[in-house]
């Protein structure tokens, strides 16, 4: 188990072995990663075409929250893709994103998701051969060994930041009196300072800003090292890890009639399969494409000690709590000039 502590900067051995063996046998199907946050790795021919985890923002969250793709454009592409074309093709042909840019973003999103899985808690990994359906598959796929090496590089980079411990669960806030209200830091730090309220973890901030978890954690670590931020507390670890219900969903549960997805034929599916789960996640479950643009709630607000459980349950627009509504107002003020071109 990797804990996110500097002394433990190696990828989880269970995950490593499972991914390595899945790659060796050329698995086409999913690898259910049961743990905290847990998730689902989608493989085609032993290579990774997508990862879904409540611990890291999906591509949809990244492009919508960053304003890179307008929400109405995404929804239009999604609706058009439901008619039979691929989501990737729709986004590109509509001029919403370049082909190279999309590939780069997908690759960075997958690397971020694997980093989150690798430094989380992994109870077990369960390969499930079968057809794979991913809304925006990484094409060409990524090699498991490359992603594992990248995850380890990231963990080592974080471990090298003095004083950064338990970063996954660390709640941060601005150091008192250090940053004057009218000072502009630049480099994306102002947005982090504005949202670091002592209750949010790096993951929460990553979701709120539409950034990768590693990039967010790295910047928070640097800011903490420079005395701009302080850790107020650490979110409690999960007391029990019963089922992977929140982070996993069999690929077969994707609504084939509405989900524009790449389907890869595979080895025969096993006789038994994971019970169906309705947890919607951006890259795989397109039922509510707009909802992913909302900030993820702080883990403790929705899920107590198990943020990997229902912490990222997507909600419909307009159903923010008071705290989330205030956060959204702040975010809109911060992001409007860039996203609207004002």
């Amino acid at each position, binding site marked *: 188990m990797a804990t996110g502590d500097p002394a433990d900067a190696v990828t989880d051995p269970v995950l490593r072995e499972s991914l390595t063996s899945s790659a060796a046998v050329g698995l086409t199907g999913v690898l259910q990663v049961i743990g905290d946050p847990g998730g689902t790795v989608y493989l085609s021919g032993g290579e990774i075409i997508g990862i879904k985890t409540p611990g890291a923002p999906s591509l949809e969250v990244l492009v919508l929250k960053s304003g890179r793709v307008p929400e109405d454009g995404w929804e239009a592409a999604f609706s058009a893709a439901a008619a039979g074309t691929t989501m990737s093709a729709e986004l590109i042909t509509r001029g919403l994103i370049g082909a190279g840019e999309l590939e*780069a973003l997908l690759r960075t999103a997958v690397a971020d998701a694997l980093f989150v899985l690798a430094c989380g808690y992994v109870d077990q990994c369960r390969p499930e051969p079968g057809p794979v359906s991913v809304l925006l598959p990484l094409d060409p796929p990524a090699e498991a060994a490359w992603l594992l090496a990248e995850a380890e*590089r990231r963990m080592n980079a974080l471990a090298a930041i003095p004083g950064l411990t338990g970063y996954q669960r660390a709640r941060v806030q601005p150091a008192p009196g250090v940053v004057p209200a009218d000072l502009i*830091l630049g480099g994306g730090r102002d947005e982090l300072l504005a949202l670091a309220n002592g209750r949010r973890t790096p993951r929460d901030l990553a979701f709120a800003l539409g950034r*990768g978890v590693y990039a967010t954690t790295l*910047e928070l670590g640097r800011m903490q090292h420079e005395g701009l931020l302080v850790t107020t507390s650490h979110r409690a670890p999960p007391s029990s890890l019963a089922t992977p219900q929140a982070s996993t969903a069999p690929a077969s549960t994707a609504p084939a009639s509405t989900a524009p997805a790449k389907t890869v034929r595979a080895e025969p599916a096993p006789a038994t399969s994971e019970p169906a789960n309705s947890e919607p996640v951006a890259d795989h479950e397109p039922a509510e494409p707009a909802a992913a643009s909302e900030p993820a709630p702080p883990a403790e607000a929705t899920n107590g000690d198990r943020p990997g459980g229902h912490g990222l349950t997507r909600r419909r627009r307009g159903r923010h709590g008071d705290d989330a509504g205030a956060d959204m107002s702040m975010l809109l003020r911060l992001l409007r000039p860039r996203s609207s071109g004002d």
Partner: protein
Amino acid sequence: MSSLEDSLRRILAVEGVRSAALIDLATGMVVQSAGDEPAALPAIADSLAQEARAAAAAQGPQQPGGGLDEIALNTAGRLQLTKVLDARRPGEGLLLFVDVDRTHANPALATLRIGQAAPSVLA
């Protein structure tokens, strides 16, 4: 072949270019690479990303001269160009790193040609 790999191969077609890589500025990750890439490319990429962040920070938060566009490093035998692509948000974006053999190219001409080809990498 991926779209990115295809794009980087067009960069490789510029005379004197030994290798090209696309690097994520926020993480230092090598997103894609092509050509005769050095073995230590992941470490180089991480350093380049830090270098680009430091150079951007040196401009100050208001960046009166505009955002960082390019970093050029010249040695006796090499020209190493790092161009900023897609910097829509501060601290984020993609870097195009190109390693040019100065003994096989005119550095100024190579810089020009790479600059002309760079915008199409993400298209």
